[in-house]
């Protein structure tokens, strides 16, 4: 899933300053699982914001700025902000607000903005961080850099591109110690993980080949994939 974490409240408040009628738009998929932008978190954030803006109202005005004006903060959560059909369902409601604070990942924010096409301001409530897995309750760990050229078959299912902080392909650098990475001594060295896994699998010979430089052109960023069934002769993609 895509893992994200909420921006600091002060940063969000600052973004919302010019707007009075605000919608916090939650996303019910990845960011709900990683407890950053699902229905629960969207509701919590709007309550926090409401309280914060209320408190500002009671503070004396500074430097001629008027105290925080009354703000209306509502919440809607849709299943996925990266799918047009779910955005379309609430589009009529979205356009009634001055600004929409999306607590989806960067994909959701951009795609909702794309659907609204300049009709309303979209603001990001989260910092999108990585593609990860739930390691234990409340803990998510990065596992894929979406390089478009998977070599997990050669490395015992441990990705050197992701799990080595330098994305080295032919073995560890000289900075690991006691199985930990030089960048953070609490983090495992990806290459020691690969070595141990392959040893267990009896396939250590797999890392003895010299791996050629990676094809960083495998993904033509920003990339696009059109499923075969949707490819139309003479057209790049099907437009609705």
């Amino acid at each position, binding site marked *: 899933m895509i893992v994200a974490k909420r921006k600091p409240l002060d940063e969000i408040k600052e973004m919302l300053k010019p707007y009075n009628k605000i919608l916090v738009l939650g996303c019910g998929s990845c960011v709900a699982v990683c407890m950053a932008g699902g229905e629960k978190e969207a509701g919590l954030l709007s309550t926090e914001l409401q309280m914060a803006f209320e408190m500002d109202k009671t503070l004396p005005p500074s430097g001629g700025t008027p105290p925080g004006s009354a703000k209306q903060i509502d919440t809607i959560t849709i299943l996925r902000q990266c799918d047009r059909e779910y955005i379309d369902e609430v589009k009529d409601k979205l356009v009634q607000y001055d600004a929409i604070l999306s607590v989806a990942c960067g994909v959701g924010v951009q795609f909702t903005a794309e659907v609204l096409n300049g009709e309303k301001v979209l603001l990001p409530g989260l910092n999108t961080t990585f593609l990860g897995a739930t390691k234990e309750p409340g803990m998510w760990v990065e596992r894929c850099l979406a390089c478009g050229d998977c070599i997990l078959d050669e490395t015992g299912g441990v990705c050197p591109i992701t799990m080595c*902080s*330098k*994305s*080295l*392909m*032919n*073995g*560890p*650098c*000289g*900075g*690991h*110690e*006691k*199985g930990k990475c*030089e*960048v953070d001594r609490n983090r495992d060295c990806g*290459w*020691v993980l690969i*070595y141990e896994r392959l040893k267990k699998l009896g396939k*250590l010979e797999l*890392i*003895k080949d*010299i*791996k*050629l*430089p*990676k094809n*960083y052109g495998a993904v033509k960023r920003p990339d696009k994939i059109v499923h075969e069934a949707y490819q139309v002769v003479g057209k790049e993609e099907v437009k609705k």
Partner: protein
Amino acid sequence: MSKLGEALKSGKFVITSEVGPPKGINMTSCLDEAKHFGEKVAAINVTDIQSAVMRVGSLATCIKLKERGYEPIMQMVCRDRNRLSLQSELLNAAVFGIENILCLTGDHQTLGDHPQAKGVFDLDSVQLIATAKGLMEGKDLAGNKLDGIPTFFLGGVVSPGLDPVELQIIKLEKKVRAGARFIQTQSVFESDKFRQFIDKVHSMGINIPILAGIIILKSVGMAKFMNENVAGVFVPDNLIKEMKETKDKQAKAVEIAARIIREVKPYCQGVHIMPLGWGHLVPEIIKQAGLSLTPM
């Protein structure tokens, strides 16, 4: 042919040393340090944005050393340049007649003085060696023909003190296969462990000149710092005790370095002395180690 290559070929015990370029363009102290040992070693490494701390580049410093008649070894790390820039820099080096290239991964950018920098690592050290070898064969990494073919004498590094040692040796073997002609090691303080490492290297059928890394131990604080922070380096208690008890730190530093060199000498083809600012001690270390002060 590179003078370093010739020295290694002659079978003589080879000594290299090292300078680090300055932050800013005042080259005086860097070149002065080289002056202490430039004529007494076979070649001088020049670090490449060492410790990810921004400074003058390796190539410019290598050119300065070469102008003074010294034999430079240009270090190249993979952190700061993609394959276009790495290959171009290799050609730049060849244009200036610099042949000795030591290929390394490079410390992670977050450990240096610009921790927000984007790390590159487009190639790794094995791939960089193979790429340089390809240039020597007249082809760039994309298979395009070169007009004017460079000559390099390529090297790599290994850290004998790192576990698992098998993983170190697997990567070392790849470096040799990729085209490395010499190896310099991370700093050695325990000659017994170094000998065991060399035995393992030989038992895996790897045959390449290895220069044992010798860091001049300046103080107890430095020893403790390295033990806590530098991967693969371990200064044993007895050396720390010696440093603690001495009244003359520099004399003791020379004595320890010379002793380690004598101990590792039977197991390697040379030593790489890293003076870290104490370059003036290098000639005395060479002397006390019983080695010749005329490298060629």
